[in-house]
């Protein structure tokens, strides 16, 4: 049989699993190998994921499972995404959907965000969690590499109301060398599709000499899809199989981004301590309407929210937001 969750479309013989090692063929049925198993849960700021334009200031519960359908040479979470999930079963937590939502509520969280590995490898579990979360009035978000089939993308949009898609590169050579996939056209297709249905932000990790020359093309692409899409350009930390690489030069990258800010109003440059490019400016009058701190790997943080609802307090122009500010401790009342 063929797995139809991600664009690898792995062929699975009876009893065997595919590339991500999370689905198997069991008697002709595609089944999850590790349902309801989680590698971690933790309280986080939604800005840390990063989501800058969804429920600013809110507290979310970050969760992850194991496994991934890509083979990124710079994976930051290789300990969960690259390890054989079967080797992690002794430390994976067994938490049912209702219990997971209850855990988020007890910690005063406004939402649940899947962000440690790839949600496409755990869709049936996530679908069950989303039903429990919807019943509890708790939104769900995720970080995804977007390398999903149209069917799985429809499921992602059913589960998650806010999604951050990682657009890692466009050049097929880069995709082959650094990500282990043929090309990124499915990712682009899915950004386009998801942005029609739910709140979408996009993240691009920049690697010197690998994909930095593609920033112009990626910006043009996003502007064509929807210029309101917030774009997070991440300074890549040399990790995993690229740990010996240099740190990308901040000034050089920012110079390139400066030219692009005219076509995309919400471009951010972060994943390093003290970044000056994490505030949201009103596209109309230029006022900084949301001030944030970039705490590097400590995550990002809302400092000041000046919008009135989703409007600039100065000129009244609309700021692209999902929801509005949620006070950090708002959920404590129902915890």
């Amino acid at each position, binding site marked *: 049989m063929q797995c139809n969750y991600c664009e690898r479309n792995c062929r699975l013989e009876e009893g065997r699993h595919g590339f991500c090692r999370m689905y198997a063929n069991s008697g002709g049925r595609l089944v999850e190998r590790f349902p309801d198993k989680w590698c971690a849960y933790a309280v986080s700021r939604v800005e840390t994921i990063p989501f800058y334009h969804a429920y600013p200031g809110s507290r979310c519960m970050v969760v992850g499972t194991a496994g991934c359908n890509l083979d990124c040479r710079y994976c930051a979470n290789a300990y969960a995404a690259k390890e054989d999930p079967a080797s992690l079963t002794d430390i994976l937590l067994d938490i049912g959907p209702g219990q997971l939502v209850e855990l988020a509520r007890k910690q005063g969280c406004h939402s649940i965000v899947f962000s440690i590995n790839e949600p496409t490898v755990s869709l049936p579990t996530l679908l069950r969690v989303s039903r429990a979360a919807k019943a509890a009035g708790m939104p769900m978000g995720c970080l995804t590499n977007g390398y999903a089939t149209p069917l799985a993308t429809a499921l992602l949009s059913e589960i998650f109301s806010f999604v951050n898609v990682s657009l890692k590169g466009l050049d097929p050579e880069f995709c082959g060398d650094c990500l282990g996939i043929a090309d990124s056209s499915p990712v682009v297709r899915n950004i386009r599709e998801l942005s029609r249905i739910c709140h979408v932000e996009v993240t691009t990790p920049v690697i010197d000499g690998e994909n930095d020359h593609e920033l112009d093309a990626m910006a043009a692409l996003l502007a064509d899809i929807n210029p309101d899409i917030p774009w997070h350009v991440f300074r890549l930390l040399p990790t995993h199989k690229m740990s010996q690489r240099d740190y990308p030069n*901040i000034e050089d990258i920012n110079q390139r981004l400066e030219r692009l800010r005219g076509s995309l109003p919400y471009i951010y440059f972060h994943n390093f301590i003290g970044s000056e490019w994490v505030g949201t400016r009103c596209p109309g009058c230029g006022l900084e309407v949301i001030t944030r701190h970039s705490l590097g790997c400590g995550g990002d943080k809302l400092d000041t929210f000046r919008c009135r609802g989703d409007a600039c307090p100065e000129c009244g122009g609309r700021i692209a937001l999902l929801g509005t500010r949620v006070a950090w401790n708002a959920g404590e009342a129902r915890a």
Partner: protein
Amino acid sequence: MSLAILDARQWQQVVDLGTGYKIEAADSPLVGMVKGVLARHPFPGDRDPRGNNWVTDTALDLIDRYDPGFAFLTYARQYYSSRYSPLTAAERAEMRDAAFAEVERFSRESGFTTVLVGTGDMTQAVTPIDLTGLDGLAVASNWSARYAGLYGLSARDMDRLTGHPGLERVATREEIVDLFGGGPEDGSRLPEQMAVARLGHYFNTTSLRRLVMLPAPSYFVPVSANLDGVASVTDVKSAVLARLGREKVAIAFLEGLGCNDFTVPFTACRNGREWYCYEPGDSQYLALTTGEHRVFEHNGGYRYYLDDIERKPFPFSGYFTSLPSGTIGQAYPGRSIAVGNRSMFMHMTTGCDIACECFARNLYNQGLMAVIHRQDKAAGVC
């Protein structure tokens, strides 16, 4: 105002430590000097073999330029490596010896009398304790193996915890307040109950990575025998201050090393009270640097996330919301520095005039941070 210099490699920024806001035109000679030190010594990484060399090299550079009388150093590479890397006994011993060699190099090249303190022994991580199924809430930090805060427990939870094979005890807030001689007003940052794990067990509530070794319950920790009159980690501050009038002194805090690891003569000093012993972390640092137990404010079970509000003070200082008072750096009138690879503890718990530290979290190496608490002592130096 305390200044923080953020160094993300080839790019630096100066901010107000209290607000996190960028400060324009902050480049005094002292700031320029510290920026230069950071630029010359990029941090190699928590588990990198050069991680402890970085501490000595940076401290010596800073001493050359600032001429302090007191230095607080932390060497943590062996702690991070033991936690996350499977090592043989020989590899651990080699790493331990390398840490002691770095302290020795510091002493030799700086001329400082160096007092060595270990944070405690390590032990194999045997069994995770899963408290996710409680009706109430269990809160454990990534960095605490032994303690978890408990809130809103039901009778069913209490039954389950009482018979749990991985737990040594469940202590109430009142028991902890009594243990450390506090009053009812002291318990606001203590959990309702504290679960205490047995040797080798650890709480698996938020851990992201597989743990290999973790801190063993260490009721005693080693303090090198060149410091007299100490029976507890809380005695170190006053004993060192007494020496500082006569000579230049450094404290070298060796993380992940206990009485079983020390290769120099030492005194085994109390590391807490009765069953409550410190793990490597904020409360142990503060016991050492303030001479007081600060368990009421810093413990393994507080829901630190409650403090993470918008405009939280000291945004670059982790879960600290204020500068601790009574630290050794504040008490010493001469010039002081802190250098270490255990992130924000350097600038928050030592009170030293200048602190240089790695800016790494969960093993992700983002660069460096230096904090200048005191610019007024630099006259004639920079």
